[in-house]
């Protein structure tokens, strides 16, 4: 993988994780400068682009204090109707619970305390009979967690524990 490819990858992984565009530019530029000056190989110096993006995205999240005094992290993933299920699959594995959806946005939260992470599964149904779809899904243990035009999203806690 060339440096250019690595930087492109890094940029899109940061983008998916909802990092602000000006911040993405800064992060990528800092990596580029470091690589240029050190002559190091990107994945050796910074690790896989996705992992590095995840490390940096953490500093871009909002923290919310809940009534129970637990601290939660909130993140808005950027997504489209073409890639959102793949993004949700990875996010759910990493403990992110989908709270709502918007145009190009998946609003998620997870506890600040890693040991409290739960693993989430997601499913999308497409259709115009909003209420009918929700009834069917609830009967099957799925919980509605937002809809956007004809797309309806459902979540449930996965049975196997998060790793």
């Amino acid at each position, binding site marked *: 993988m060339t440096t250019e490819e690595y930087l492109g990858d890094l940029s899109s992984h940061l983008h998916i994780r909802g990092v602000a565009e000006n911040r993405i530019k800064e992060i990528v*530029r800092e990596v580029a*400068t470091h690589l240029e000056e050190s002559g190091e190989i990107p994945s050796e110096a910074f690790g896989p682009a996705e992992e590095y993006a995840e490390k940096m995205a953490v500093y871009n999240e909002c923290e919310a204090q809940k009534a129970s005094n637990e601290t939660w992290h909130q993140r808005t993933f950027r997504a489209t109707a073409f890639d959102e299920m793949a993004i949700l699959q990875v996010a759910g594995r990493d403990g992110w619970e989908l709270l709502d959806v918007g145009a190009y946005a998946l609003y998620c939260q997870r506890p600040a305390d890693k040991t409290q992470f739960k693993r989430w599964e997601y499913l999308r149904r497409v259709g115009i009979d909003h209420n009918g779809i929700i009834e069917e899904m609830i009967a099957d243990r799925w919980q509605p967690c937002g809809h956007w035009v004809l797309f309806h999203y459902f979540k449930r806690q996965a049975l196997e524990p998060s790793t």
Partner: protein
Amino acid sequence: MDDDRRTQWLRGVLDLCFLSALTGGEMYGYQLAQYLDQAGLGKVKGGTLYPLASRLEKSGYVSSSWREGSQGPGRKYYSLTPAGQRYLDQQIVRWNGFSDLIGQLLQPKGDER
């Protein structure tokens, strides 16, 4: 094994080394990495250094600004904030206490037995 142990030790104090390096003035990322390497800590990877810088910046201990180079790419310079200086001073006292304690614990006990 020896490397593993060294990595573990470093994990606990790398942020203090980072802050301490900035007491002499602002530095950019790669310059910091070189400074720590020359000081004997070994090569701190970019994948460790910059997330640490972000954490310290979010905590308010360092601030940063971009500066265009006359040649080559622009660089992001990090500098110590007053809050960072206070934090560093407190933590140095704590580290010295801890390091003295371990030093004493690891003294050979032969004479006392």
